[in-house]
């Protein structure tokens, strides 16, 4: 891909070289600097349009997000304060992916300030930012890297100019270091002393040259998280930890079937009279109770007697939904192929699963007659404000949405379900609330990654792959959040015609990174009645796991080693390089005992390239090891992961994200799914939903972040697809049979009793002191 700027003067950033940019010193009491509008990393889409039918290889979702953010990049500001620190209000969500630390590093780099002196906070919803306040698609660093660097460099330039006047020198003879401007004779002025003197009186355009990557002293170093100490001392505050006056706990009694609705409450007065309970009100999603403690809310929910209307999928099951998907599946085309060509069909099912983070949906809301204030973690707060204002009947300008650090997301916080409910409950009660979902609410009434099938047909002759067709068929994925606006805003640039939103997302994220002749990949959707969301890495884990499994089968049929086969067909040297890294570090091909095996897979997305090698133990003594209330099963014993992420701002943080992707990949392949039966999901808590636990964790996990000069790509979701695929491939090789569905334990007998659906939440146990550790 070209890094050259577009030749089109109407859309191109005004830049004279890759490192020289114009930005603005804004009027203010101290130094406030911003990048020029229209600044990003995205190369021209028009110049790079492919003629082949694999758009995501050329112009992907990351590019679309970059383009959608271009008009508002000038609104991204960096400020230098009187105490010598710098502030940057990050218009993104921090949910554990580490971007607060990464952006502190980026500001520190261009401002020549110690990282600890850069305060990154989360911006409240800023509707003027439009699509530049979406945290998704692992695009934050890619989209904001250059604008934030430019803003920081402008601030530094302003400080230099002010210092030159103070010191009777010229800018070129001064240098900046660690928060000070230093004159040739050794005199120094601190940024704090200069912050007011350097302030802009009006908006002034300034041209700056960014540091060359070879001069980086902060970017690329291993920086520990700036919030780590708060996190490990219990001081880090999540939405439910905020003390908002009068905001009492609130929870919702939810229906027994998916998306059921309240017909009548039979004992509202009785429940309202329970200890601590202040309100019992009906909202669209159920019956809300507000009380002095969450314990009292749980008691009230359990005491409520509610008549419900059934939801729209009242009798649906895994099997019935799969029948619908089968009906919706597009036919595979039998290609016109030469005699002796082998045509192979493969068919995989990926069951529903919950991407929910450990912090449940929660929000604080204080809704008054003429205004509302919300505190919550949200990845698309502008859309949240739009919807909440609409539902409350308030103008958007009267709804303030404070974005709070979140306890994980994995796609869940693209939706603001908890914040909307909190607002509705606060309005109905006429009082502030601190609303929390019970854990049981999430798998049962929350959002699931949709169930899908992925069918692949390949034709090969004499070791050559002639065609590769993939038909992905899925329950509808809900993209009713900011991604829709991104697609609409960039529609004219997208390298395909007018397609449905989910189609656009699919086409912008999926491609086959191998030379396989005629390649087609399609998405077909069916059934829009489930609550779904993009879960970490959207379609890629399933689409890629299916592909990589088939690639192993092709290697086998053509008599090739899986690594050799992949190397022969991979298109990009960058991918071969990460593959070679894991092959070397993971000792690919070493002798393994029967029942154990290695597996390998690659993935390209978010402007990066990944390879993953795993070893798995499927021997009976391992599979059947005793695990109390959990899934043992095959154990991944070793993972070697290599990623070329482009420039890695913080390799330590990126490694952490790969760890998360690996643990997700293990869960998707081996343990974690939700079971739909009779119109409801059976799972209700972590004792039913076996996300990776310590007894599933590999003893040996190594992540290699490869040096790279490519633009900085995305990290948060980058680890999932290759890890899932590698585990699936290793499992297949260890047991000698290709699985038909994932996770592999989905049809095993449940190791737990489904919790009752009425009442919808379980009582808390009372025997905690009998289980001291």
């Amino acid at each position: 891909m070209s890094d050259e700027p577009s030749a089109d003067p109407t859309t191109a950033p005004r830049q004279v070289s890759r490192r020289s940019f114009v930005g603005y010193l804004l009027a203010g009491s101290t130094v406030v600097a911003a990048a020029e509008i229209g600044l990003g990393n995205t190369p021209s889409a028009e110049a790079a349009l492919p003629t082949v039918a694999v758009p995501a290889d050329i112009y992907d979702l990351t590019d679309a997000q970059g383009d959608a953010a271009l008009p508002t990049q000038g609104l991204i500001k960096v400020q230098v304060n009187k105490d010598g620190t710098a502030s940057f209000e990050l218009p993104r969500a921090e949910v554990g992916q580490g971007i607060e630390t990464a952006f502190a590093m980026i500001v520190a780099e261009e401002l020549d300030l110690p990282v600890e002196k850069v305060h990154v906070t989360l911006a409240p919803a800023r509707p003027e930012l439009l699509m530049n306040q979406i945290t998704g698609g692992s695009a934050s660093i890619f989209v904001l890297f250059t604008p934030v660097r430019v803003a920081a460099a402008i601030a530094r330039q302003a400080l230099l100019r002010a210092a030159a006047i103070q010191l009777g020198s010229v800018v070129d003879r001064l240098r900046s270091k660690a928060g000070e401007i230093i004159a040739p004779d050794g005199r120094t002025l601190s940024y704090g002393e200069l912050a007011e003197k350097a302030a802009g009186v009006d908006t002034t355009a300034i041209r700056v040259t960014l540091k060359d990557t070879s001069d980086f002293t902060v970017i690329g170093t291993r920086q520990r998280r700036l919030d780590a100490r708060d996190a490990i001392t219990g001081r880090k505050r999540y939405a439910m930890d905020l003390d908002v006056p009068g905001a009492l706990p609130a929870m919702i009694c939810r229906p027994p079937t998916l998306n059921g609705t309240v017909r009548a409450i039979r004992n509202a007065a009785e429940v309202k009279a329970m200890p601590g309970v202040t309100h019992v009100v009906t909202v669209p999603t159920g019956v809300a109770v507000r009380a002095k403690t969450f314990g009292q809310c749980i008691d009230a929910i359990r005491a409520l007697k509610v008549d419900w209307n059934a939801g729209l999928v009242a009798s649906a099951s895994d099997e019935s939904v799969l029948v619908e998907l089968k009906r919706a599946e597009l036919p595979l085309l039998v290609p016109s192929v030469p005699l002796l060509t082998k045509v192979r069909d493969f068919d995989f099912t990926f069951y529903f699963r919950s991407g929910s983070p450990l912090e449940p949906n929660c929000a604080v809301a204080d809704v008054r007659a003429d205004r509302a204030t919300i505190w919550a973690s949200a990845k698309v707060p502008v859309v949240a404000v739009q919807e909440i204002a609409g539902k409350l009947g308030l103008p958007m300008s009267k709804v303030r949405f404070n974005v709070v650090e979140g306890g994980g997301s994995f796609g869940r916080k693209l939706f603001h379900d908890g914040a909307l409910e909190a607002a509705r409950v606060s309005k109905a009660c006429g009082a502030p609330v601190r609303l929390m979902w019970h854990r049981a609410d999430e798998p049962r009434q929350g959002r699931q990654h949709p169930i899908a099938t992925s069918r692949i047909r390949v034709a090969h002759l004499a070791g050559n792959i002639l065609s590769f067709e993939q038909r992905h068929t899925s329950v509808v994925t809900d993209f009713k959040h900011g991604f829709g606006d991104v697609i609409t805003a960039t529609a004219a640039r997208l390298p395909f015609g007018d397609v449905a939103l989910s189609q656009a997302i699919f086409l912008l994220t999926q491609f086959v990174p191998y030379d396989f002749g005629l390649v087609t990949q399609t998405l077909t959707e069916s059934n829009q009645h489930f609550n779904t969301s993009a879960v970490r890495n959207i379609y890629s884990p399933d689409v890629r796991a299916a592909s990589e499994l088939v690639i192993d089968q092709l290697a086998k049929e053509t008599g090739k080693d899986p690594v050799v086969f992949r190397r022969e067909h991979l298109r990009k040297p960058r991918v071969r390089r990460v593959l070679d890294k894991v092959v070397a570090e993971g000792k690919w091909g070493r002798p393994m005992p029967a029942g154990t095996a290695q597996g390998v897979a690659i993935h390209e997305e978010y402007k990066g390239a990944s390879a993953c090698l795993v070893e798995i133990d499927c021997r009976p003594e391992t599979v059947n090891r005793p695990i109390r209330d959990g899934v043992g099963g095959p154990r991944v014993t070793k993972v070697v992961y290599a990623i070329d992420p482009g420039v890695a701002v913080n390799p330590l943080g990126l490694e952490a994200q790969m760890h998360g992707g690996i643990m997700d990949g293990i869960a998707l392949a081996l343990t974690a799914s939700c079971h739909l039966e009779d119109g409801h999901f059976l799972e209700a808590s972590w004792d039913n939903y076996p996300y990776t636990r310590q007894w599933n964790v590999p003893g040996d996990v190594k992540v290699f972040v490869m040096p790279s000069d490519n633009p900085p790509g995305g990290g948060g979701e980058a680890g999932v697809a290759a890890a899932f695929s590698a585990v699936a491939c290793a499992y297949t090789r260890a047991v000698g049979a290709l699985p038909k569905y994932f996770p592999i334990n989905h049809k095993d007998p449940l190791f737990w009793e489904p919790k009752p659906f009425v009442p919808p939440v379980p009582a808390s146990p009372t025997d905690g002191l009998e289980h001291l550790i």
Partner: protein
Amino acid sequence: MPTHTFVLNGKSVTVDVADEERLLWVLRDVLGVRGPKYGCGINVCKACTSHFNGRGFNPCAVPVGALKPTDEVTTIEGLAGSVGRDLHPMQEAWLEHDVAQCGYCQPGQIMMAVAVVNRAKRAGREITEADLDNIRNVCRCGTYSKIRDAIEDGAQRMGAG
């Protein structure tokens, strides 16, 4: 409503709540101690792990009425103070290994780690892989490998400290 007295992070506290109220909500909603987190309310995610008379437990599964005035409850907020330091050696290990991602489960993970190490100490042995495998605390960010490394490091620091 009945009153209940117990020792919280070194200081005696008295609360006026029903016997059955689970200690997690007494801590969080009545006393404003927000380090122990809610993740399930049924003692399976372990996000609220704290210490009861020096041993690991989950306040979501303990009615406050079960506590005696002499019972000592330590939450993450009181962990360092319980050994008379700014940071407990296990917290230092957590920083050293940069374990946390979103951080939500980490107070519980650290409290459990200290309990597991102390349990091994009481048994006169080192922590084992089985000890680590049996830790039930959920980390949805997947920091499990770093947690294992930090616990081994923290155990050394606790022994040395």
